[in-house]
């Protein structure tokens, strides 16, 4: 399959075998201030029934990635390239109509802010029913029945009454549930949840994560869980991708990334978070500085201005972009330090402080 990319045409590559396979995804936005490289060469795979976590600071490109997979940048100014294979079908080159058809039956999204996904002037039931009826040619009555069934499924009490409520009559947690009900009404095989619990209390977060886990068991969906909460990731995902400045800096199983983290940014994240399961320390260990602007990504390794180990790379950190390489068993890391150096630093300096 041949297609246009930012650089021109690329030679054909074989179709993907994983349920979802993203290859070298790039999403760049031309703006008055310059080109924003929001996502800059991201690749990952996901099988059905499994969950991939994507973590990173705000502005690291998480949401742009999810919109890219769902084809929601199509027809905007965004420059898109790379491949997104969903169940054997490539979506970047597919038509807008085709991707829209797939959105709903094969893939769906849960946003951070349910109010942005729910229309204020229509009842919750009407919106769920509509989402269902677009893809399944059924009567209005059947649509309503489906809405009630889904509301019940996501734990809304007295769903036959609440189905006629407007979104503002729901609490924050209930709106999130209603949005999940809407997203799941067509049993999508791929669910992208973009910070689904960030705006919620921990008690409600626990309910929503529980619900997602149950639904995944029942329908075998693949889930992409985007969050900045390392606790949520530890609880919920199988594989974990750490993003920084629009690129993956580390990618492995959740246990690999938590117990043998390889990238200095991942070390920084793990050591700066306060945690209930550890002795309280007198002082936190933040990462210095702040996340980069994606218009002006630092040369070389995007993390180098904040990285305490940059001097060890002999100038490479600030001049050469490191490749994402296999650090063993498919655990990928993007850093100029040698495997030996990373191992030593982690064991001697980082691990004792976690």
């Amino acid at each position: 399959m041949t297609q246009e990319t930012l650089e021109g045409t690329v030679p054909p590559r074989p179709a993907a075998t994983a349920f979802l396979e993203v290859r070298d995804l790039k999403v760049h936005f031309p703006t008055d201030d310059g080109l924003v490289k929001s996502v800059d060469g991201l690749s990952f795979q996901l099988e059905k029934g499994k969950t991939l976590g994507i973590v990173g600071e705000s502005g690291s490109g998480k949401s742009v990635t999810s919109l890219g997979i769902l084809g929601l940048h199509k027809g905007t100014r965004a420059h898109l390239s790379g491949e997104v294979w969903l169940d054997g079908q490539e979506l970047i080159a597919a038509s807008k109509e085709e991707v829209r058809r797939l959105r709903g039956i094969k893939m769906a999204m849960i946003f951070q802010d349910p109010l942005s996904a729910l229309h204020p002037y229509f009842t919750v039931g009407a919106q769920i029913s509509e989402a269902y009826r677009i893809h399944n040619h059924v009567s209005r009555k059947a649509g309503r029945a489906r809405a009630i069934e889904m509301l019940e499924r996501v734990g809304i009490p007295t769903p036959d009454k609440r189905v006629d409520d407007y979104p503002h009559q729901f609490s924050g947690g209930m709106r999130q549930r209603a949005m999940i009900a809407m997203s799941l009404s067509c049993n999508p095989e791929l669910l992208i949840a973009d910070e689904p619990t960030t705006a919620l209390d921990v008690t409600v977060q626990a309910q929503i994560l529980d619900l997602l886990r149950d639904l995944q068991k029942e329908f075998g969906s693949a889930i992409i869980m985007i969050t900045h909460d390392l606790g949520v990731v530890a609880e919920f995902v199988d594989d974990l991708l750490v993003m920084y400045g629009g690129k993956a800096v580390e990618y492995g199983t959740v246990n690999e990334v938590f117990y043998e983290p390889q990238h200095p940014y991942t070390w920084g994240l793990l050591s700066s978070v306060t945690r209930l399961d550890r002795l309280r320390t007198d002082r936190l260990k933040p990462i210095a500085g702040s996340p980069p602007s994606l218009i002006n990504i630092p040369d070389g390794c995007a993390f180098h201005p904040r990285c305490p180990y940059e001097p060890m790379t002999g100038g490479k950190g600030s001049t050469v972009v490191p490749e994402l390489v296999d650090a063993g068993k498919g655990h990928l890391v993007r850093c100029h330090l040698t495997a030996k150096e990373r191992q030593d630093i982690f064991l001697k300096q980082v691990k004792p402080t976690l």
Partner: protein
Amino acid sequence: MTATTSDVAATPADDARPLLQVEGLQKYFPVNRGIIFQKEVGAVKAVDGLTFSVAKGETLGVVGETGCGKSTMGRLITRLLEPTGGSIVFNGHDITHMSRGQMRPLRKDVQIIFQDPYSSLNPRHTIGTIVGAPFRLQKVQTESGVKKAVQDLLALVGLNPEHYNRYPHEFSGGQRQRIGIARALALRPKLIVCDEPVSALDVSIQAQVINLLDDLQDEFDLTYVFIAHDLSVVRHISDRVAVMYLGKIVEIGDRVSLYEHPMHPYTHALLSAVPVPDPVKESKRERILLTGDVPSPLNPPPACRFHTRCWKAQAICKQVEPPLVQLQPGHEVACHFPEERVLV
């Protein structure tokens, strides 16, 4: 959590009198209906009978779900809101119903830092104007003195003093929060209410701001009331912690006691719901799932307000309100059936 038994909360300075003493504090917001003739049809009982004190140099953390009245409490004790009932004594002065004018000499002693570093700074004012405003309002500095004082403050909170003439949008979220902190520090307050000061920040930046607050507390002997919904951040920063539910304190105690031996079912549910960043431990943890949502503060459940979601509720919980009583030294609980439980 046996590993943390060595965690000892700092003993508050032994000034005999607490810096802040709050008793039976209430705030009811009237709810009106009608377009022309507004009729009061009820009241949101946002804060409904809070009693606590804060010693000088101490940090009191306040946690609870959204809408439980944390911010309202913060705005009451800084007197940005007029209490409906109860009393607030600050540094020996009863400030419960003080007018703006009466508050003026005390205003400099009590400051507040808000959650949202984006909306709490006026976008049209320079950093110099924003951070210098308290000096100008209180007329404690000459105009040339103001600039110098502001630049000192900027340096103190880790900002570049040269950025005096820049606007808020030129700063990142973490830097804006530092600006808010600099403004709050301007008049060397005694008490700072921090309302979710790090909630909007990325973890790496959160840690920077928390360390800054820690350093400033040591340097200026500050007293904090630290409002947040993140229980691990609150454990890090607080000496004592109050847990709120629907306008009331359900449990309050020193940090170690509260986190290691929580006794109220609601505190148990909260603590058990916080996911810890450790996949293996997380898969083994017990989680108490609360059903439903927090009831409306317009019409809170009678007696124990938590009874509609409490798995231990008995008949008495629906009839008699459990008072907040001391069950361990420095550890008070409002529950008919308190019980220690290890959760973290």
